[in-house]
């Protein structure tokens, strides 16, 4: 895990809309090492998807990368100098799977045609070679009757099968990094379990690095080595999965953990975080979470930076420390119960 594959450095992404400039990503820095799984957690609008799309070069007008850098094994992928490299890397050494396989696959082509296209473009294979490789890939991701499936259109397959098809497509060029943007959100729990199992298995077999983007903390807990929590376009906390779950330091992480009902324990009442996420159209002053934070103080109206704290990084002036169970319960019980 010494070699850094992807490094995102102080990334800023803006979207120009009729109502003004949406500052979707505000200074995000991340890195993923070889064979590592990074969980990127946040609610809708937190910037987690935009960050990963920027890494894949998928930010298009009206979106724009206005600051920061994205590096692949030390070389920048941005700007005119980065363009040739980025054409070579993206889709090949770095691949992405999306939430909704139905809208991400082209309905007018069979799954076989779509997967062979990747192979013929990046690997310069001929038709027969690509067919054979596609068959292998379908077997790899556990699609039953792979030969028939290759000739089926996306609508003929179930949600879980389509997602497997998309994973096969992403793996076509043997990428080193797989970015999975909410790959199981649209699926039923038993199918979700199948897909998560598959990803874990593939990671072991192919020595993949994975960036797992999700809002489901349960998914992260089972799969990730490290977790970065995003809020309002920034990373508010980054630590190993164990630390995040055993003693989160940022109040938002804590709130998120406590507002997730657990099937293995019954609280009388779910703890909720009062208010709603910030409007990124407005320029943010200070900590983005301040207006919803239970331990807010006057200093929180000044900007906070992500700071090292023991083995983790936290963007909070007054982080919690120590085990959180009772301490946190007391400190958050007065958060609005509605």
């Amino acid at each position, binding site marked *: 895990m010494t070699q850094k594959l992807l490094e995102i450095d102080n990334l800023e992404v803006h979207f120009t809309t009729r109502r003004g400039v949406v500052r979707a990503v505000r200074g995000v820095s991340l890195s993923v090492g070889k064979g590592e799984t990074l969980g990127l957690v946040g*609610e*809708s609008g937190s910037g987690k998807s935009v960050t990963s799309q920027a890494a894949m070069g998928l930010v298009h007008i009206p979106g724009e990368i206005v600051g920061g850098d994205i590096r692949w094994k030390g070389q920048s992928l941005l700007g005119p100098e980065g363009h040739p490299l980025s054409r070579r890397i993206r889709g090949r050494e770095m691949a992405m799977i999306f939430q909704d396989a139905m809208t991400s696959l082209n309905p007018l082509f069979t799954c076989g045609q779509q997967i062979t296209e990747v192979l013929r473009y990046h690997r310069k294979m001929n038709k027969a070679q690509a067919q054979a490789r596609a068959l292998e890939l379908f077997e790899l991701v556990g699609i039953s009757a792979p030969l028939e499936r290759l000739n089926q259109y996306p609508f003929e397959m*179930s949600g*879980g*099968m389509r997602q497997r098809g998309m994973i096969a497509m992403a793996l076509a060029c043997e990428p080193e990094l797989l970015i999975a943007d909410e790959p199981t959100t649209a699926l*039923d*729990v*038993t*199918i*979700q*379990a*199948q897909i*998560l*199992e598959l990803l874990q298995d593939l990671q072991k077999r192919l020595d993949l690095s994975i960036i797992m983007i999700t*809002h*489901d*903390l*349960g*998914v*992260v*807990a*089972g799969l990730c080595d490290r977790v970065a929590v995003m809020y309002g376009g920034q990373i508010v906390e980054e630590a190993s*999965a*164990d630390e995040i*779950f*055993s003693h989160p330091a940022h109040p938002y992480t804590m*709130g*998120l*953990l406590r*507002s*997730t*009902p*657990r*099937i*293995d324990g*019954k*609280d009388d*009442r*779910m*703890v*909720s*975080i*009062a208010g*709603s*996420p910030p409007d990124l159209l407005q320029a943010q002053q200070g900590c983005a979470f301040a207006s919803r934070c239970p331990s807010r103080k006057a200093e929180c109206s000044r900007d906070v930076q992500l700071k090292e704290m023991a083995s983790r990084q936290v963007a909070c002036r007054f982080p919690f420390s120590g085990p959180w169970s009772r301490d946190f319960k007391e400190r958050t019980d007065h958060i*609005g*119960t*509605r």
Partner: protein
Amino acid sequence: MALAEQIEPAEPLVRVEDLTVRFPGGRAGFWGQTELEVHAIERMSFEIFPGETLGLVGESGSGKTTAGRAVLGRTPVKSGHIYFDGRDITNIEGDARRLLSRDMQLIFQDPYASLNPRMRILDLVAEPLIVHGLVRNRDEAVDEVKELLRKVGLPANAFERFPHAFSGGQRQRVVIARALALKPRFIVADEPVSALDVSIRAQVVNLLQDLQQEFGLTYLFIAHDLSVVQHVSDRIAIMYAGKLFEIGSADAIYSNPKHPYTEALLSAVPVPDPVIQRSQKRIVFEGEPPSPIYPPKGCRFAKRCPLATAQCENEEPPLAEKAPGQFAACWNRN
């Protein structure tokens, strides 16, 4: 069914008996001579007692939403009976149905789709009051709506604004206010929090629980998210491919599931704790649910079930009492 008396002495508020719902499923065969049917729900029976929350869980296509709609009379029933407060309401129509709808309301899943963007909150929430002739003029409506909005935790001036001015969680509060307008006794909440963000979900769930306490409401809480259902429900019913597989108290279902499908479902729910995740073995079942147009002859789970025997393939298991108050449809479990 005589189960009610064994569990609780109270009369059930809602009783569903042998409910079967089928939808036209296109045509097949030579020149389309065969009419196909989608078997949405097959012979489903359950009861909901006053003041309780029955959680209805299932994967997509299991028929849970159809069950909720059928109880409210919003979908034609092929056979079976639905009783509300002891009265058979299966085929009630017209004025009587309208009167009944005061007692039974529905909360939808997606608050972005269920509020007309061209209507103000006032008109949206007052509409049921106007339809039922419960307010005579605008002033009365405003008073009533303000009170409702206050109850669901929205600012008083919200009534003159349009839905676009509100976030998802606030919109869902508007939807809840509208469902409460007629002071119903029974509410079907169809995936009320699935479209919301995690931190907002808890707000809405808490609100629903507060309102239940305040007004003595009875809920049919439909969801695919077992952890939320486990949290809000007194009893839980598990559906699979149109059949009721298991029903029992929430604690019993969680700690001692009797049906292999329930076990799989529970183990598939990711728990936000890496330590538990690592130690716990997920039961991952191969395959997918059967076709609703050509349902299998025996147990609908037989193809995926590790316990399946020849009997499972050929005979449909009845819902039988496996523990006091806990019923499951499985041949191989006691």
